[in-house]
Structures are given as C-alpha cells and as structure tokens.
C-alpha cells in the first residue's frame, strides 16, 4: 500500500482514487475521460468560446463556411459554430437529467424488488420485463409523442421524461441482481444476525455497494439518452426551441441541407454527438471492466 493510497484513505477519497487508478490503467477510459472533460468545458465556457450569440441572427441565412462564420449560418442567419458550441449545453443537459432520473427510478425499483423479494419482486420484475420487451426507441418515440401532447410544460421536459421512462428497466434489472447477490452476502447476513433492521441494512450495507453499478449506469445511460434525444429530434419530436445537436440535424434536414449539399450543417452536430457518446461509452467500459464485467448485459 503506497503512501499516496494511505493518504487518500485518510482523506476518505477511496472511491475517487480507485476510479482514477482505473482510468490511469485503461487507455481507452482515459481517452473517454479527456473527451468528456473537453466537452463539459466546452459547455461550461460556451459564452466565451462561441463567436456569436446562437440565438441571434448575425448574418445572411444559408451562408457557406467563411472566415466570419467557420461553419456558415443556418436558416435564420444564426452562426452554426456558436450553435454547435452551445448545443453541448442542451445535449448534455438532456442526457444528464434523463440518465439521472432514469437511473433513479431504476435503482428504486431494483432495490425494492431485490430487497423485499417475494411477491413484490415478482410484480416489479414482471412490470420491468414488460418495459424491457418493448423496442426501446420505438417505445420512447411513443412516450415522447404522448407526453409532449398532454401537458403544457416545455417540450424539452417531456422528451427528457420520455427518455428517462424507458431507460430505467435495465437499470432496475441490474440493481436487482446486484442486490440479490449482496443480500446473500455474508456481511448482510451478519448484520441480520446482529439484528440490524432491514431499512438500515438496505441503506448502510446494500446501497453503498450498488453505488458503483449506479455510477456506471448513469454514465452509459447518458450516452444512450443523448443518442435517443438526437433520434427523437430527427423524427420531429424534439423541442424546436432547444438548440441541441439533434435539433440542429433536424433543422438541416427540414431546410433541405442535403439537396443544397450543405454538409457543414448536418455533419458537425453528428460528429459532436458521436464524440460525446464515445466519451461516455469509453468511460463506462473502463469502469465496468473494473467493477464487474459480467453484471451488464443490455446496452444500446
């Protein structure tokens, strides 16, 4: 045990340190981390990086790339590069919130099913199976179509909700199986032998040990959520006021970018989506390999 590790232990940085070690060992995961950091920085410092305000018309519409507008302008003369940079914010936001909400629902259901077992487990797992048996994107499309049509809240939230609602089943499955194996673990049995109440066992013994799985889930779910959002936007179910990367592609499509050969409009957002999904997938893969390579079975 190195001094460094000793120190981190004392600072209670165990988990963080462990993760860092994983990333340092795994080249792919490190690439993912770097990419991720870059994209997050881009989102955070968008106002400083973007040459223009993406919500303002700053030039003639449909301009090809030029010195003034490195990626040209869109249908109302907004700068595409600025849109691309600001797009990181919306896309990451959608991905993050959807992933967190989805994982939260999944964790809750998985924990309950796994811990209480019996009839609760059976019922919840039937329910989960039902959702799992639906083609995910198809069902997300359906939910998004339904949700954005029943409330007067901004469409963006409807889409996030739709993505979250289809993201949870696999999380629930995974958490449940983790809980089931943890429940049989000796230290939980020891706690029961001591007479620790079940709620406390759940919170103190099971939850902290499911946490890594949840973290990985959030990361991979984010990737999937971003992809799903892009697909929904492409199909015309997105929020037309949210400048996400998916919406940029959608606009490019409805304003005939292919006909006009304006590849600078629909290629960059696709590449950005790919890069950020890649970042999350690499990070997820790295962490997963470390924590438990056999737990996962579903992805997209």
């Amino acid at each position, binding site marked *: *045990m190195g001094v460094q590790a000793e120190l981190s*232990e004392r600072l209670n940085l*165990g988990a963080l340190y462990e993760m860092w070690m994983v990333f340092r060992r795994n080249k792919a995961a490190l690439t993912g981390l770097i990419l991720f950091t870059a994209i997050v920085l881009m989102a955070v410092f968008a106002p400083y990086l973007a040459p223009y305000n993406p919500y303002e018309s700053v030039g003639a519409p449909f301009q090809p790339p030029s010195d003034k507008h490195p990626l040209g302008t869109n249908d109302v003369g907004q700068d595409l590069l600025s849109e691309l940079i600001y797009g990181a914010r919306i896309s990451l936001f959608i991905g993050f919130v959807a992933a967190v909400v989805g994982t939260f629902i999944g964790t809750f259901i998985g924990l309950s099913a796994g811990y209480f077992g019996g009839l609760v487990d059976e019922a919840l797992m039937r329910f989960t199976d039902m959702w799992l048996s639906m083609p995910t994107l198809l069902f997300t499309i359906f939910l998004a179509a339904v949700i954005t049509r029943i409330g007067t809240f901004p469409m963006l939230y409807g889409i996030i909700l739709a993505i979250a609602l289809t993201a949870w089943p696999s999380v629930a499955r995974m958490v449940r199986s983790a809980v089931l194996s943890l429940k049989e*673990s*000796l*230290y939980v*049995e*020891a*706690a*029961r*032998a*001591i*007479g*620790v*109440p079940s709620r*406390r066992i759940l919170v*103190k*013994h099971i939850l*902290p*040990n499911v946490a890594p799985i949840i973290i990985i889930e959030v990361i991979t779910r984010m990737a999937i959520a971003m992809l799903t959002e892009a697909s929904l936007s492409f199909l015309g179910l997105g929020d037309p006021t949210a400048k996400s990367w998916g919406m940029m592609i959608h606009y490019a499509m409805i304003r005939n970018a292919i006909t006009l050969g304006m590849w600078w409009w629909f290629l960059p957002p696709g590449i950005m989506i790919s890069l950020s999904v890649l970042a999350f997938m690499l990070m997820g893969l790295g962490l997963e390999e470390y924590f438990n390579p056999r737990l996962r079975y579903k992805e997209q």
Partner: protein
Amino acid sequence: MPGNGFVVRAENLKVWYPVRRSFVELITRKPPLYVRAVDGITFEVKPGEVFCLAGESGCGKTTTGRALLKLIRGAVIGGSVYVKPSREVFEEVSRHAPEAVVDKDSRVIDVYRVPEKYMRPLRREFQIVFQDPFGSLNPRMRVVEILEEPLLTHNIGSTKEERLEIIYRALEAVKLIPPQEFATRYPHQLSGGQRQRVAIARALVMNPRFIVADEPVSMLDVSIRAEVLEVLDELKQKYGLAQLFITHDLALARHICDRIAIMYLGKIVEEASADELVFNPLHPYTKALMAAIPDPDPEARLKYREVPIKGEIPTAIRLPPGCRFRPRCVAYDNAAKEIKRLCETEDPGLVEVKPGHRVACWLYK
C-alpha cells in the same frame, strides 16, 4: 423439557429446502420435493461448553448453525430451538411474545415462536462468526463502523465515547492491538486472520451468551489459524462463552471441543465427548472419518485404514429407506442378515450406548 442445563437446545430440528417445481408438475400435483439439509436432529449446548458439529461438507452442519439463530430463509423448518437468554432479555421477549415462552422459571424461549420483529434482543446474546472472513465484513465500512453497528442496533452505550470504549475493549480482547489503529482501517487493509478476529469482536461487543463459530478458520492459512483459535479458546476460558463450533476437521474438533457430534446427511450419527469419540468411535462413518485424519504415527494410520468407505455422499433429495449411510457402509456388507434387514427398512435412532456416548447404528442395538 428434558434437562435444564443448556444455553441452546435443538429438538428434532428440521430444515427442508423445497425444490422448485415446474409448471406442469404444479398442475399434475406432483408431491413437492425437498432437500433435507437438516432432518431431525437433537442436541444441546451447555453453558460454558464448546460443542462441535463435524462432518463432510454438505452434511448440514452449517445449516444447523444458522437455523439455531433463525437465519434461514426460504426453507421449511420443523422442530424447536430452545434458548436460555439472560434475565432482562427474557423479560423483554416474553413481554412482546409471551407465546414463545416455554418455561418461565428457567427462562426458556422457543426461538421459532418469536415473531421476527421481536427477535432483536435475542440476537444480542446469540451470535455467529462466519466461515468467510473476506465476505462477512462490508468492504465499505471501517472497522470502527462495523463494530459500532451492533451497539447502535441494541442501544448499547449512550455516547460515542462509551461505544468507542466498548469497541476498543473488544478489539483488545481479540488481540488487535493497538485498537485505535485497527479501528480506522478498512477490511481490505487487514489480513484474513485479523478480519476474522474483527468478526469475532463484532459478536463480542454485545456480550453474548452463545456464539456459533461456523468453520471460523477453514478459510485461513494454516499459519494464522492458531491466533484465531487462541482467541476463541480464551473467550471460553475468560468469559465462559458457550460455543457451537462447526468444523469438518476432526483433529481440530478434538483439540478445541468438549463434546463432538458427527453429522451425516442431515442427521447426527454419533455424539460423545471429544476424547471418547476420537479414541473410541463406534459408528462406521465416524471410523471412516477418523481414517482420514493424517496421523504422525504410521502404524496408527495403517490401523485406521482398515475401515474404508465407499462411494460418495448422495443427494439429500431422495434418501434411501432405512439407514441413510447404508449405501456407503462397509459394516453393512459384513453384517448379519437380520441386521442388514433392519438397515434396509428402519432408520436407526440415536441411542445412548455408554453414558454420554450416543450412536445411531443398528450394530449397537
């Protein structure tokens, strides 16, 4: 209520695990099948005594240990487990679950009649140490947290300082010195022996009357077994702690235990004091086990080799009629016709052949 001088007494204890039936079998009403992990055993552990359960793996000894503490889930449990807790615990339990009280005067409680939610006070005095020291400690908790948990659960010690005091004393008792240093460590920073001692300390902080030690050293390297065993022995000497020591190692059992019971396929086949059992085994199975003990004396080894065993331990789902050891029994092959007939039809009960030495074999009836 036969006898009164016990801490824990199992009477005709049965643990049957149901085998999952398929849908068709459910419809056609096929009778349910069970794995009879423990199939009607009776024994008692006296105060201050170390009682050993020994046998091959899969014979049900671990299940017995857990069944005593009501830690088995998803199985059909029959028979009774009587315990004698301390006065205050007895009063607390009898207040909430009067139906569980068997004998008020001698404070005997039937564990299986206590509803789960009132088990907690009992758990305080009846504890367990698991076989696997690597799995039995939560890797995300420090030693101090692990040891504090039972205290918090049972409201022992009102302040943090008080609890720390108790924890340090328990750590010292299991020879983890200095306790202050060990207390801040995570399990993965401890060796196997140290972990097992933490596990013992966890049982110890509650000041129990009885612990089940479920093969506490079998997963440890031989070199560090001694220190754990030493701690356990000290507990018996110093605190008069009654123990149910589960092991597959007869040599170890003889060394540690006051009395030994040999289990085979969910039943006790022989029970006697340690020396009696080792030097005068009666049951063919015990003899076979003895043969497996490596002995430094080659002559002795040769002598025991004369009693071999055949086949392997069968599954506990479909048991043969009569004596369940019969298919593997060498003595059966050589036995007289009428005994053979008995072996084939009837199960031999545990019969006291000498004072304190009981055996379940038709040869001795």
